[in-house]
């Protein structure tokens, strides 16, 4: 997959235009606040129907506007062209692939695999257990539609169970317990496997780029750690129902699973320096790409936003070596920044970004 062009209208600070992107690398150079990240965000929205920066679509409208649209021509793996359209108006989104409206987001997210390296990724390391859970959910959903669907089902049933607790529909709760147990245990099992797979490459990648000897790994602590079967999970929910009623919510289940980044026996979120955590977050993304590639045999599109700034030249080179294959990559850089020769020398488009305008250089 490759974006051949990207068009935008009323999007953030970007001047309405159609930008060719028909090369393996696209480099955006400019000062902060000029529109580089907005450009990457537009690509991301066309891939997934949502942003990696805000949960509110209206935030992406140009100041003073109430709607925006994005369009792109994408070259698919078989070499044909695909038309993508995303429109936000009157509080609603409309997504079209080749003119056909996509009503279920599931039909969109498996269209273009794209992975973003963003400044906020450091939260995977130093943030709440929830941010790591989100990372793993995203990683697994990218290659496993059944997992994505299970997560969605689990969330719906969980909301219903909580509503049943609040509205005193107590006869329904055993039914919800059973539904949660079935889907939840399936999710827990696959998370265990995913963490094992993650751990099998995480430390060696980290050590290679950080040039240290570390014992980095993820420790997975499921909320239903003591449950082996679906029936165990059902029993657990039944036994803790009184507590759940008091709390007015479901206090156990895979929505409370925790993931810790460990260096040996030490919690890395407490022991690591900011630089080390930044690096570890980059490695998280590399593992995500690597896993995606292994599971699907496909190369993703990469959006790499400013995250290399804090790495020295050697580490940048090492990072780039580990990146592996991709079908297309977009990089952003500051004007004074020396981007690595590997990208600078290869044939690719470079745009200088100023005040929402893109000039080919």
């Amino acid at each position, binding site marked *: 997959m490759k974006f051949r062009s990207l068009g935008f209208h009323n999007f953030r600070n970007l001047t309405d235009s159609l930008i060719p992107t028909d090369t393996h690398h696209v480099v955006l150079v400019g000062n902060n606040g000029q529109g580089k990240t907005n450009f990457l965000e537009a690509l991301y929205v066309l891939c997934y129907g949502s942003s990696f920066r805000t949960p509110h679509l209206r935030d992406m409208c140009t100041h003073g506007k109430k709607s925006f649209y994005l369009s792109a021509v994408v070259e698919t793996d078989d070499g044909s062209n695909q038309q993508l359209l995303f429109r936000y108006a009157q509080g609603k989104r409309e997504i079209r692939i080749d003119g056909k409206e996509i009503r279920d987001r599931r039909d969109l997210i498996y269209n273009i695999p794209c992975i973003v390296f963003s400044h906020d990724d450091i939260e995977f390391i130093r943030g709440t257990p929830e941010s790591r859970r989100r990372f793993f959910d995203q990683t697994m959903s990218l290659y496993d*539609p059944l997992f994505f669907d299970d997560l969605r089902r689990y969330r719906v049933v969980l909301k*219903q169970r909580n509503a*049943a607790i609040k*509205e005193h*529909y107590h006869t329904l709760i055993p*039914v919800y317990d059973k*539904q949660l147990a*079935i889907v939840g245990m399936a999710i827990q099992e696959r998370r265990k496997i995913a963490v094992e797979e993650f751990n099998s490459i995480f430390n060696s990648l980290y050590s290679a780029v950080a040039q240290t000897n570390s014992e980095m790994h993820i420790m997975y602590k499921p909320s239903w750690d003591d449950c082996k079967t679906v029936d165990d999970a059902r029993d657990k929910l039944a036994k803790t129902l009184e507590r759940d009623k008091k709390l007015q919510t479901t206090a156990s289940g895979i929505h409370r699973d925790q993931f810790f980044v460990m260096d040996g026996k030490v919690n890395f979120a407490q022991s690591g320096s900011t630089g080390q955590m930044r690096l570890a977050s980059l490695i998280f993304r590399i593992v995500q790409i690597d896993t995606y590639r292994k599971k699907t045999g496909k190369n993703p599109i990469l959006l790499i936003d400013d995250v290399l700034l804090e790495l020295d030249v050697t580490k940048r080179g090492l990072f780039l070596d580990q990146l592996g294959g991709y079908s297309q990559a977009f990089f952003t850089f500051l004007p004074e920044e020396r981007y690595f020769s590997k990208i600078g020398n290869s044939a690719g488009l470079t745009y200088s970004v100023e005040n929402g305008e893109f000039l080919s250089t």
Partner: protein
Amino acid sequence: MNALETMVKQLSRLPGIGPKSASRLAYHLIKTDPHYNQLLAESIATIQDLIFPCSICGSYTETDPCPICSDPNRDRTLMCVVEQPQDVITIVASGSYNGLFHVLGGALSPLEGIGPDKLDIANLVKRIDEGTFQELIIATNPTEEGDTTAMYLRHVLKGKSLTISRLASGLPIGGDLEYADRLTLARSMRGRVNFKE
């Protein structure tokens, strides 16, 4: 133009009709054949008197009991439970089912305030107790709410001498993507094993 505004407002309350379509419809009604408007108005005004839920099964009918409930040729050992009256029409049209029906009037969803008390479950139990049914097919929608409803019915009807099955859900409508098959297959395999108490 107050009359026009009122009409647009009323039309846009219909499902699937936004303000734009509503105003297009309204302008169409202004210039169309007055006889047509008369017919339409009459049919709207009388629909609820002419078509109502069957007092036995709950599906829409012009006579009470409905033609299905009063058809002596239908298999009275078979009962199919559905969410909405429209589902009865769909299943009848498929031509593959010759038993009776029961319409619940929705699916369980505490989030929307729909508990067991809001569905016609009491009459279902009564019909089973008083009738000659041997097999119950639960044909609620293949959604989380439909699953919950099916499992809840299963629980409520526990102990009755009755075979209970859940209608196998086919491919999702419009599910033309590769993974849809995989997903549905995996899901229905799992469902098969789990549809027991």
